[in-house]
């Protein structure tokens, strides 16, 4: 059965492409990666938050994919495999820069139990217009909030929400269960909401009927 992997290519066509590259038609590699280039860069960018680093890591990941294409097993999808290579590469780069694997927010608070994140800020900020994204500092703030999450939450969020992979694809790329994808995604989303809610960040405090509910716990 031919499964659509991108707008223009089926899984079978992709397999054929990989086989031809393996037989020596290396120029086809650029055609193979074309639909994934943006994703590879976006993942590297989300993890490293630095355009120059992200670009280099994206190149490194794609180069590795090229060099190890012979080891790629056809039972998994090329895109999924490439995501894994990219995440590994970006993490390695980040660790080289500074040993911060333990300092992420997700690891400091209540992270023993993946499902038990409790919202603490109830300010309402539903009315933020998407046009805010035109402002560079808003994008920067969102990116910074994302990098402050622990690895396991951020990776799931990047693949599922930023890159909009399905739950199944995210699970395959990270080699975790679909259940784990769901619990981590819930936590990542709630943590980001909390980080960016007007009461804490102050970023959007001007919008909406906010702040009146801040600090009120529903169980009190």
């Amino acid at each position: 059965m031919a499964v659509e992997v991108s707008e223009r290519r089926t899984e079978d066509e992709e397999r054929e492409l990989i086989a031809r590259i393996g037989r020596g038609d290396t120029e086809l590699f650029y055609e193979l990666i074309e639909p994934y280039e943006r994703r590879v860069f976006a993942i590297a960018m989300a993890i490293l938050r630095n355009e120059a680093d992200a670009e280099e890591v994206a190149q490194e990941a794609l180069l590795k994919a090229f060099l190890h294409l012979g080891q790629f097993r056809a039972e998994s999808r090329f895109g999924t495999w490439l995501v894994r290579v990219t995440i590994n590469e970006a993490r390695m780069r980040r660790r080289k820069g500074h040993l911060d694997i333990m300092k992420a927010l997700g690891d400091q608070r209540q992270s023993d139990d993946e499902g038990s994140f409790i919202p603490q800020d109830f300010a309402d900020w539903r009315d933020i217009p998407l046009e805010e994204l035109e402002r560079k500092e808003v994008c920067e703030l969102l990116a910074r909030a994302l990098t402050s999450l622990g690895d396991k939450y951020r990776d799931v969020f990047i693949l599922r929400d930023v890159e909009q992979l399905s739950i199944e694809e995210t699970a395959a790329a990270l080699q975790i269960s679909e259940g784990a994808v769901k619990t981590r995604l819930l936590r990542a989303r709630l943590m980001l909401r909390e980080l960016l809610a007007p009461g804490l960040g102050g970023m959007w405090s001007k919008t909406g009927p906010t702040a009146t509910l801040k600090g009120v716990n529903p169980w009190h």
Partner: protein
Amino acid sequence: MALTNCRDVWPAISDYLDGELSPALRAEIDQHVAGCPKCASVLHGTQNIVRLYRDPRMMPAPTGIRAGLRQRIQAHAAPQRGTLRGLFTGLAVVGAFAILLLMAGSYSGNETALRAAMSHPAYSTPVDPVFVTAHGKLFHRAGCPFMHGPETLLSAADAVAAGYAPCVRCMKEALHSVEITPQGPPLETSLIR
């Protein structure tokens, strides 16, 4: 019937947004949220998060990846006359040397220092990701009862590189994947220290 407790609503919010809930549970949540400003705030704020991050403007488009990549691939491919097969052969040779060097390195004192001097280093690296904690010295399987504190998931190779050693309770195979002789494990299996 509406859910009465907010704590029953929050764990379902993500699935709610992804359309993964049964119609019955969805209706219960709708009903609760309609009468609960706090849950409405959490739900709408989370929805906003998803909407914002899914916007294509969030991620800048890659600019110079293709040109740089082409250069790097050519640099690798040139000595092998541009064929991938040749490239793999070359790489295998380089890889073999790298392994030899790594082995040599591990015996010349260049290895990453373990986080605890008394830990037994890993003799093989598990394929699955492992868990570590900020103050722990060991890496563990998920759910190991001997892991304390907030945990981080990372690949076993990264854990080893960061100086973690395998937990003797849950990571036995990483400790003793080969037959241990009285002189210790055979040299060629001790790639990672």
